[in-house]
């Protein structure tokens, strides 16, 4: 709950009693004024009785505070059965003395008035019921029914005034319901007597869709949200959606969460989305928006984090089957309670009720990741759609929940103001498209923006098959980006050119080698010739020295011979 300084200051002076109604205690900064009566007014069927009953049941089950329900319209048994359709077991609470129900039935046609009277019987019965269980909370539903039972309105008014005073004296926190009258909050103007806190419930139908709204008209001694807050009723009782104002005070995180698609991670400089950021995946029909979102679901659950998926186009089983066909097996995560899928037709409720439901689911499940598939399913006045999304984005950001929104549109063919308005809410925008060329459609992906990180400026082609989404390296040539068969053709053409080139080079290499071999052979031959020459030369040297030797010998022999002769 948002504790503001003013709220803490007020709780010191004015004590409040929590109603336990989701969201209501937040807009009233704590609940209803303790020990004082509160008027809940609205037209028939707007949820007054249920508001009162929720106040008592929650008080009994959550705070151990017994309560008295005094019904002026429904019989005790009817009441128990009617709220039995919710998860409320009134009979058990009655048996545990946490709840006392008294049905006040007055048949005006039987009564004859014969002088002065007062409504002491009502006081005695109420006092008796309060004392029997030690009640701290009281609901009077709808006390104005007494006006049709008794003729003397002056007496009734005086008695009601006394009753509310008496309730304050008893120190019980009371909820008094009143049917809305023409030009008045209640048919008989009892708001005059219950002036501490007045809450108006409303039930409006627009385009055949009903939206319930709640407004705190008056809260003496306390500040409170002044807007109309949407609320809805389901088996868990009442849920009020407290968020209206756009808060831009959330903490920006540095954490990165992978997108679940390797190729897409690589296109983003940080390797994924920032945790707590809002991601828009837009594209035309059949571009695989849901698959992109589901890949992120798988990545989330693989990390052991919780993921909540709101599906407005497919029922849970259909969604799981279809995602299974592209290799995303999510059933196991549902069994582990890591994944929850909430399917609903967009037209089932008004926008704000959707928002309120999402709010409750998110509060309850505490997911790390939320998927809204698709936001384009919401129809309505553009300003309203935008306001709803704004609140949703703020709600998610304040809880650091990473959100992926899918949208049936194309970045190139922005349909109108709405799309532009949505884009300003988104931190990352992945645009999907399919391009027709050469008799085939090919899917292209482009990161249009990624706040706070650099990202690839390239258009990538991607395939969806039984292994999921695979990004294909782009072919970027002189004629732009080529996809599909054109890309394959181009790549094949380039491959064959490369082969040719390679063959040519090898041929040349072989020729050169041959030349080289030739030269080397020649060098070897010449070297051999040289060697032979050198050998011959050395032989000649030997001969020459031998000759000289033999000449010497001859000369000596001659000398010897001559000497002998001399």
């Amino acid at each position: 709950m948002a504790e503001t300084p003013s709220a803490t200051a007020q709780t010191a002076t004015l004590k409040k009693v929590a109603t336990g109604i989701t969201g209501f205690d937040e807009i009233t900064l704590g609940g209803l004024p303790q020990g004082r009566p509160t008027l809940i007014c609205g037209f028939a069927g707007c949820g007054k009785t249920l508001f009162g009953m929720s106040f008592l049941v929650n008080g009994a089950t959550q705070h151990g505070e017994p309560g008295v329900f005094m019904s002026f319209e429904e019989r005790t048994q009817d009441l128990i059965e009617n709220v039995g359709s919710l998860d409320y077991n009134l009979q058990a609470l009655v048996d545990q003395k946490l709840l006392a129900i008294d049905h006040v039935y007055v048949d005006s046609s039987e009564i004859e008035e014969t002088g002065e009277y007062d409504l002491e019987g009502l006081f005695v019965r109420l006092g008796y019921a309060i004392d029997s269980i030690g009640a701290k909370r009281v609901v009077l539903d709808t006390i104005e029914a007494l006006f049709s039972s008794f003729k003397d309105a002056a007496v009734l008014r005086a008695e009601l005034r006394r009753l509310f005073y008496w309730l304050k004296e008893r120190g019980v926190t009371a909820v008094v319901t009143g049917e809305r009258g023409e030009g008045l909050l209640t048919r008989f103007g009892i708001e005059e007597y219950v002036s501490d806190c007045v809450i108006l419930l409303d039930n409006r139908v627009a385009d055949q869709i009903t939206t319930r709204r709640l407004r705190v008209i008056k809260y003496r001694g306390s500040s409170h949200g002044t807007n109309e807050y949407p609320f809805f009723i389901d088996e868990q009782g009442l849920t009020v959606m407290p968020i209206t104002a756009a808060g831009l005070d959330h903490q920006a995180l540095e954490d990165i969460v992978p997108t679940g698609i390797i190729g897409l991670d690589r296109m983003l400089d940080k390797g994924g989305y920032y945790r707590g950021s809002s991601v828009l995946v837009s594209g035309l029909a059949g571009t695989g928006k849901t698959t992109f979102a589901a890949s992120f679901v798988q990545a989330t659950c693989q990390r052991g984090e919780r993921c909540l998926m709101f599906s407005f186009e497919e029922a849970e089983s259909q969604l799981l089957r279809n995602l299974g066909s592209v290799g995303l097996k999510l059933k196991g995560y549902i069994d582990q309670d890591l994944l929850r899928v909430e399917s609903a037709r967009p037209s089932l409720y008004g926008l704000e009720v959707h928002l309120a439901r999402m709010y409750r689911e998110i509060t309850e499940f505490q997911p790390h990741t939320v998927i809204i598939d698709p936001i384009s399913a919401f129809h309505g006045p553009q300003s309203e759609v935008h306001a709803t999304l704004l609140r949703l984005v703020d709600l998610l950001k304040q809880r650091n929940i990473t959100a992926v929104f899918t949208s049936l549109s194309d970045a190139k063919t922005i349909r109108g103001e709405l799309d532009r308005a949505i884009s300003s809410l988104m931190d990352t925008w992945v645009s999907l498209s399919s391009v027709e060329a050469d008799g085939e459609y090919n899917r292209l992906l482009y990161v249009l923006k990624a706040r706070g990180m650099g990202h690839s400026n390239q258009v990538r082609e991607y395939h969806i098959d039984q292994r999921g989404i695979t990004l294909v390296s782009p072919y970027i040539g002189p004629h732009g980006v080529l996809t599909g068969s054109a890309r394959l053709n181009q790549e094949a053409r380039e491959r064959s050119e490369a082969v040719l080139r390679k063959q040519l080079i090898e041929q040349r290499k072989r020729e050169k080698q041959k030349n080289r071999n030739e030269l080397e052979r020649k060098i070897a031959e010449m070297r051999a010739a040289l060697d032979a020459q050198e050998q011959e030369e050395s032989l000649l040297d030997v001969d020459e020295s031998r000759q000289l030797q033999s000449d010497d010998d001859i000369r000596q022999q001659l000398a010897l011979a001559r000497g002998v002769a001399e």
Partner: protein
Amino acid sequence: MEICELRLYVSGNTTRSTRAIQNLRSLCDSEMAGAYTLEVIDIYQNPGAARDAQIIAVPTLMKLKPLPTRLLIGDLSDTATLRSALGIE
């Protein structure tokens, strides 16, 4: 003649309650002495009875017999209505 069975719900001894008892007794004693029974129930003493009998306004007079039952609220100062309710001509 059938005994007239009356039950009067009062709140302690407030003026209005006392007056109702007086008005009823004086009429019954003068018009149908011995032919009626009157049970006075103080809802302060017996709040459960007030709940069981669906009492809101006080004083409330119930004519249980003879049938049909009649239900009167107030201090019974409107003698004409009281007489007609009790079947006194």
